[in-house]
């Protein structure tokens, strides 16, 4: 058996110079310090993404992306297909956990200033992937074609439409017409299963490549001498955490399976208590506080503009936080991060309770 594996390795090695790769991974080390725990959240996010790809492909075997059949096909998956309820529930829960771990990963990188030179591009690719993750959530939410999804998509696309000048064309592009209809479903289905995964995978490969080439960043001012080899020590710990996450996911998916609700009715009134998914709640709730008009501009437009500007500034942090790149402490970033965390938490809770 051993001989066979050695033979196989040497066959590939002769052709692909695997020794170089093995050498790279055995030499690569991961620093050990009191903040090392945060290194694992990137991996956890990746794990949930992999789960999404696998369960998403499985759902595609039965899902039908048309307004007449979408709801029924999910009903069919959940009631007739063996383990269909489980696959859908895992897909729905893993989506939430994927975004949650991406949030944690992003904020830990921010607080540790790991985006500073030379890792600016790793941050940029990461934040873009985070925005895409929100896009995955938004586009996937409509696919069951139920009441909640229908109205959430109406509201969401309408918010996009509030952006001055380019808003309206964006809204029409997202809806595939003036109204949310079967055309919107086909379009968002395309975004969800083809466009976004394709672009996301490219960004993911680049992001991971940067991490491998540049190694793990260490927090500013922390002099660590201890380190563990990336392979196998760090990888095995990573895998163990993945196993823990898989168990959490399984428990959530089995004991709190996702519901389907009622089929979307294009001519029905919006049901009471309609809300977006939790990761959009803070934006949804804050938009409620804007008055109808601020001077001559609509309140909603001002809100959307503010969030857009905040998003762009967030993306470009490595370029305007010069201090951290020079190795100096920059508490201002910590205050911004802290403000963002508190803002998101409070408005999410308020939105949840409203």
């Amino acid at each position, binding site marked *: 058996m051993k001989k066979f594996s050695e033979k196989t390795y040497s066959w590939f090695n002769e052709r692909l110079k695997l020794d170089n790769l093995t050498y790279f991974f055995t030499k690569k080390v991961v620093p050990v310090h009191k903040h090392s725990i945060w290194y694992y959240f990137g991996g956890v996010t990746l794990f949930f993404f992999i789960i999404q790809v696998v369960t998403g492909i*499985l759902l595609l*075997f039965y899902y039908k992306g048309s307004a007449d059949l979408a709801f029924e096909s999910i009903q069919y998956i959940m009631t007739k*297909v*063996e*383990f269909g309820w*489980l*696959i859908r529930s895992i897909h729905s829960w893993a989506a939430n956990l994927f975004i949650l771990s991406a949030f944690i990963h992003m904020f830990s990188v921010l607080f540790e200033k790991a985006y500073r030179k030379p890792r600016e591009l790793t941050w940029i690719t990461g934040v873009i992937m985070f925005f895409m993750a929100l896009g995955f959530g938004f586009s996937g939410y409509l696919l069951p074609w139920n009441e909640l999804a229908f109205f959430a998509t109406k509201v969401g696309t309408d918010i996009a439409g509030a952006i001055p000048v380019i808003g309206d064309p964006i809204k029409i592009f997202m809806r595939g017409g003036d109204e949310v209809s079967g055309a919107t479903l086909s379009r968002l289905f395309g975004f969800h299963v083809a466009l976004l995964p394709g672009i996301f995978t490219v960004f993911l490969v680049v992001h991971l490549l940067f991490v491998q080439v540049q190694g793990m960043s260490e927090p500013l001012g922390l002099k660590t001498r201890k380190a563990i080899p990336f392979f196998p020590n760090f990888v095995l710990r990573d895998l163990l955490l993945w196993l823990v996450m898989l168990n959490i996911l399984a428990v959530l998916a089995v004991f709190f399976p996702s519901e389907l609700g009622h089929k979307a009715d294009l001519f029905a009134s919006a049901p009471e208590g309609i809300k977006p998914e939790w990761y959009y709640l803070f934006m949804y709730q804050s938009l409620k506080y804007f008055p109808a008009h601020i001077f001559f501009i609509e309140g909603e437009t001002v809100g959307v503009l503010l969030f857009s500007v905040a998003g762009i500034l967030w993306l470009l942090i490595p370029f305007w936080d010069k201090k951290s790149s020079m190795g100096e402490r920059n508490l201002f970033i910590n205050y911004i991060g802290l403000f963002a965390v508190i803002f998101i938490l409070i408005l999410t809770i308020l939105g949840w309770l409203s």
Partner: protein
Amino acid sequence: MKEASHKNRRDFLKYILSGGLLGLAASILYPIIAYLKPPAQREVEVSSVKAGKIDEIEKESGKIIKFGSKPVILIRTAKGDLRAFSGVCTHLDCTVQFRKDMGVIWCACHNGKYDLNGHNISGPPPRPLEEYRVIVQKDEIFISKKT
């Protein structure tokens, strides 16, 4: 002695770990494989269908009728007889058609031919077409399965 007990312990751990991993793999793979298997669909049992009025079908012509989820070919011969057969070619599942110029039931996929009694006469079809019963009641054509 000590080394042997170490080896035993190591072996024990190895079995527990690999057993656990196998169990994990099985508990993930089993639902996936079961999920991939399409559920058995109960077909809607159709015993007979209305195939239109007799004057709607000309002599020496044929048409495909929906019989539940399956096609049935209804033929009116030159003499005016009505006959119905399964529209599914016994070769590879294609749907057959009536060819007036050849005077046969013809399958376009592999040039299979059946005579107007549904018997396979040339080409690859291995069996005759299943025959259906045709009844005309007050100008209305009914097709039903032969029991």
